[in-house]
């Protein structure tokens, strides 16, 4: 792996950048691996990296049906925060946020984690009660989250309309300063490069089509478009396609897959300094380092694997954005797209063992798993390496749907992303 640095960049400039090596090699699958990860999103690639880097398990393949990073990792609005309410969630997401810090250096790949702050707007008394509940719980959990008055909100985000006459006036906001964004693609690429440097094989354009199990029920490996590949353990990190993959092992999961859309505006000069989320108005917005306004839309109401979505969702999304930021009506939408998010009944992820020995699940991140990428990846690696969950992800097991121990952040406050 050739080191990335400013100096190296200058050195390479003299030779016309001819000598940069491949960031990840294209590998033909071996006959078998110690661990196979299904799905080369940020979570799957990250898990492979942590398996190699932290647990010395390097005989690992990540198998991807399309191109690495092309799932939800490559199509999300990149909001990162950890100010979740319940202890379980706060610990889970904060584990990730701590890993985001320093990830660029760890991977020697600038993932552009930008702590520009995530401001969540309160528009009614119920919002205030709920946000305060979050803020106090976060404080006692060691997670930063602070209350801002409407004026402070506007000072933090000048385009914000805080007029009391608005349909949903801004009554304040909860700000997590460590929240922010990261460059989605770079996260996948950075993990891919470092993982392969440690010996992991990434096999793209190779859909997993079956999971073979032995007489004892334990996994033997995966059937793929390029034949059978043996594995002692299999981690599934296939986001919207998890139900389909789990079916291959004879498992049915409490998941439904919905299309979620996002959009960007044309790039403009810096106008929007932070991330703003309003669950009441349904607006999620930030500005990328290239200048586009990056805007999260809603899910379509029906399950789908089509990675597209209806126009009326876009209509409502833009109405919501312009309700809070009326200066943007003349801005123009450049591109819309969709991703497939896998949603659990309590909107919290499933991260742990499955009833099939040797098969591990990381799914159900729904509309909000990008922020968890390093944390989920690390915990999946831990769970695979030890054949047992880490204390942080232990509560996020499948059993909770049977015993009723739900972790329902959405029920506590209608929070998305």
């Amino acid at each position: 792996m050739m080191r990335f640095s400013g100096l190296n960049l200058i050195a390479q400039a003299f030779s016309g950048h001819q000598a940069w090596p491949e960031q990840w090699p294209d590998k033909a699958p071996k006959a078998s691996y110690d661990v196979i990860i299904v799905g080369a999103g940020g979570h799957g690639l990250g898990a492979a990296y942590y398996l190699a880097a932290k647990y010395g398990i390097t005989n690992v393949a990540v198998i991807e049906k399309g191109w690495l990073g092309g799932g939800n990792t490559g199509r999300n609005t990149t909001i990162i925060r950890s100010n979740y309410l319940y202890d379980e969630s706060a610990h889970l997401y904060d584990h990730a946020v701590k890993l985001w810090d320093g990830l660029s250096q760890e991977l020697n790949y600038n993932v552009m984690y930008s702590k520009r702050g995530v401001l969540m707007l309160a528009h009614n008394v119920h919002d205030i009660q709920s946000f305060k509940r979050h803020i106090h719980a976060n404080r006692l959990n060691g997670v930063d989250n602070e209350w801002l008055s409407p004026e402070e909100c506007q000072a933090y985000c000048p385009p914000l309309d805080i007029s009391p006459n608005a349909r949903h006036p801004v009554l304040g906001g909860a700000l997590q300063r460590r929240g922010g964004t990261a460059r989605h693609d770079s996260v996948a690429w950075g993990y891919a490069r470092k993982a392969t440097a440690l010996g992991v094989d990434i096999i793209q354009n190779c859909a997993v089509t079956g999971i073979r199990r032995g007489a004892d029920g334990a996994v033997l490996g995966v059937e793929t478009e390029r034949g059978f590949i043996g594995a002692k353990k299999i981690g599934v990190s296939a986001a919207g396609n998890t139900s389909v993959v789990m079916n291959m092992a004879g498992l049915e999961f409490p998941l439904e897959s919905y299309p979620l859309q996002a959009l960007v505006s044309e790039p403009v000069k810096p106008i929007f300094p932070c991330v703003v989320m309003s669950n009441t108005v349904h607006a999620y917005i930030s500005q990328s380092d290239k200048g586009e306004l990056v805007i999260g839309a809603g899910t379509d109401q029906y399950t789908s694997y089509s990675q597209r979505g209806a126009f009326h969702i876009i209509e409502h999304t833009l109405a919501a954005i312009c309700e809070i930021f009326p200066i943007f009506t003349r801005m123009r939408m450049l591109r819309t797209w969709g991703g497939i998010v896998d949603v659990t009944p309590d909107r919290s992820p499933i991260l742990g063992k499955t009833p099939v020995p040797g098969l591990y699940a990381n799914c159900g991140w729904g509309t909000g798993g990008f922020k968890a990428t390093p944390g989920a990846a690390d915990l999946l690696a831990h769970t695979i390496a030890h054949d047992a969950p880490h204390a942080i992800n232990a509560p996020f097991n499948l059993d909770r749907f049977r015993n009723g121990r739900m972790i329902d952040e959405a029920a506590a406050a209608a929070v998305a992303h």
Partner: protein
Amino acid sequence: MSGYRLPAGGRIDRAAPLDFTFDGRAYRGFAGDNLASALVASGQMLFGRSFKYHRPRGILGMGTEEPNALVTVDRGATAPGWGRATPNLRAPSVALYQGLNAQSQNRFPSLRFDLGAVNDRLGALFPAGFYNKTFMWPRSAWEKLYEPAIRRMAGLGASPTTRDPDHYDATYAHCEVLVVGGGLAGIEAALSAAQDGGRVILIDEQDELGGGALADRALWGELADKTMALRRLGNVTVLTRTTAFGYYHQNFVGAVEQLTDHLAPEQAKGARERLWRIRAGEVVLAQGAIERPLVFDGNDVPGVMLSSAGRTLAVRYGVAVGRAVAVMAVHDSGWRDAMAMKAAGVGVVAVIDLRSDVAPDLVAAARAAGIALHLGHAVTSVSGRHGVSGVTFAANGTGHAQQLAVDALLMAGGWTPTVHLWSHAKGSLRWDADWGAYLPDVAQENCRAVGAGAGAWDMGSGLALGTLPGPKPIWQTKAFVDFQNDVKARDIDLAVREGMRSIEHIKRYTTNGMATDQGKTSNLNGLQIASGSLAKPVTDIGLTTFRPPYTPQTFGALMGHHKDALFQPIRKTVIDGWAADHGAVFENVAQWRRARYFPQGSEDMHAAVARECLAVRERVGMFDASTLGKIEVVGPDAAEFLNRMYTNPWKALQPGRCRYGLLLREDGFITDDGVSARLAPDRFHLTTTTGGAARVLAMMEDYLQTEWSDLDVWLTSTTEQWAVIAVQGPLARAVIAPLVEGIDLSPSAFPHMAIREGRICGVPTRLFRVSFTGELGFEVNVPAEHGRMVWQAIHAAGQAHGITPYGTETMHVLRAEKGYVIVGQDTDGTLTPDDAGMAWAVGTKKPDFVGKRSLSRPDMAAPGRKQLVGLLTEDPQDVLEEGAQIVADPDQPVPMTMLGHVTSSYHSATLGRSIAMAVIADGRARDGQVIHVPMPGRTIRARVTASTVFYDPEGSRLDV
């Protein structure tokens, strides 16, 4: 200066000059011009600066494909505010009007002298993906130095910074046939579709129909005839200046019509743009084709442009792009353009073509027109920085170099059929070697493609190339592929070398095709170059996904009617106006606005609420409860149905009596509650929470229709049928008694939790004797249209008794004093009835009700669950904050073990102290224990009370 206005020709109106400014300088054009044609006619070839390297750029194309000439147009009157400025408009798509005020972008201090251009000198340091490789050390510099610097470089134009004064319109439309694209192919399709008599809509983004034919004098006659024929048809709607931006499921097409931006601001009346949401029986796509640039060193110097753009300028706008113009062609269409320009009076001096064998008729015609021909040659470099001063070319790009002094160079790289909308609708594509492009193959919707967009037009033939051959290795050239995002051929090559084998990775690594033109001129060239670098045929590489919108569209238009006051309905009760007249402070609850309190004089909320509370406890208050959800449940099986829905039993409830109902979701958690009344054996009047009305009705319909469809019972929403006035307090009966007819109000005849029907103030009422305050109380339901009148009458009648209107805040305090739960505040979707202290509301003998089975799941019955209890702070003046967290040991380190949180908390004027409710792990078992509420700076101590009832625990005040 190279461009100029030809003495004659074009479709402009030379009798109608228009003055406009660009970067503050005055120019003149003609009606029918666009901003680009008028500027080129004035000799202005420099339009803008590229995104990354700030290279000087002119126009590339004359249509929506234009990547370079992006401008900001300010339609504000004179004030400098940006409220009416639109950034990133493509100059060729900006119609000229008197007084047009346009500015170039992404340059400082001026277009010609731009400091950012230093990036171009340092360009070698900024290859594709450079930012992934650097800015990592020292770590702290990322936040302080690098990121702010990167962000400052972002963007092209600037966003408006003040509110947009314009408004936008929207509509739905339906037609049997929708034709997108008004070139000759689209016009033809519309004419023939109209024969069937159905409704036809023809859409074109330009200001007149004709598409490519507008640049072909020979077709003007035919065009005029056919346009006329179209206009004569009653069943065809022609929408010009309208862009079909997206093709969605089942022939739903979104389009935006520009209504006023082509007019001078003073002449603009009405909405700025209109959103068309069209559902079509059949869609005919006639989007035409877009010309491809050629990729060679220096292809971005202002004055190097598409051949079709040169031709369009000459034929349609009467503008010459230069005095000495050369055409670099690999396609026949360049030759036709050369001759068309020549015929229009443009000084075309040479055609250079990489091909050695060009159709003899073209060669002969060009010779006859006096154009020098260089077959088998390619341009290898361009001289000039702000404009072309000459070109160097050589046999096959590598032989003996020759110079040619020209002031414009046109590129004819072949044509890419426009398959955007086709692809939005998931139609498949096939590679066509003759076009060197993808063509529509199998449609997924009732849709077909025609004309050039379908490959069904003879545009001539040519080569499909990645880059033009040249003497230098690719990594030494500045040969641009994506002009706006400054992606060079060598960036694509680098991406491949760095392991980006998927075209999707190449796109994201280089940003090729991701600019505001979405790769209209760059995607195919990028693909060809990647094919070369990967040594794989194009067909093995695939294509990036086409996504809406086809061209960028304003948020204002796309959001339809939902701007400003029309964003979302705000629901008001019939008494809202009275409350507003009486100084109420409102709050939003779900979609409703509700009076929160009625301050008098200089009262703050605290004072007003204390006064309102005491009035209710001591005398009487009135409260607008109209927002409560109401459902009329009617039919012989009504009681059976409710018995299955609610946790408690309903069958034995007598007509005339009320009952509190608790509703669970099937997962066992509380979702709603309300007091409901049995009016008759087969008729119930249900109430739900304000926010739960729609949800509860939908949930009940679901069970009724799909699980228990054998039950004879129906649900009707009556939320808005009834205005509800709560009259509460010891004097409540005295207040309403004189107004009520036909109901015996005496306690024995009309006990607590009863309902009677009669009249009040002469109108029918359903009078509930219920209380959410703990005092004697009535809820007067009257048909909504009488609500305000009855409210006023009660208010008037109550004057003698000191009646006090109160709002939701007071209602909250009063019910908290009594320990009544507010679903959604004290419960949150994770509480069971037992958690909420409402086990009494669960009919344990009922075999089943919605949610029952879930309550016996292991964790739902396990010890240690959070339970709703009361809290009394040690200092009675301390009011806990709602949402504050509770711990047993305040001295533990973070992360602390939290026991629960405060759900409701108020100062109770009645009790002269604070009260609170909280959910706490094992709460009821902690009765009497002290818990701690750590707040920033201090910790508050409070005592747990297992009962949440703080006032009148015996309920004696109800029984009067």
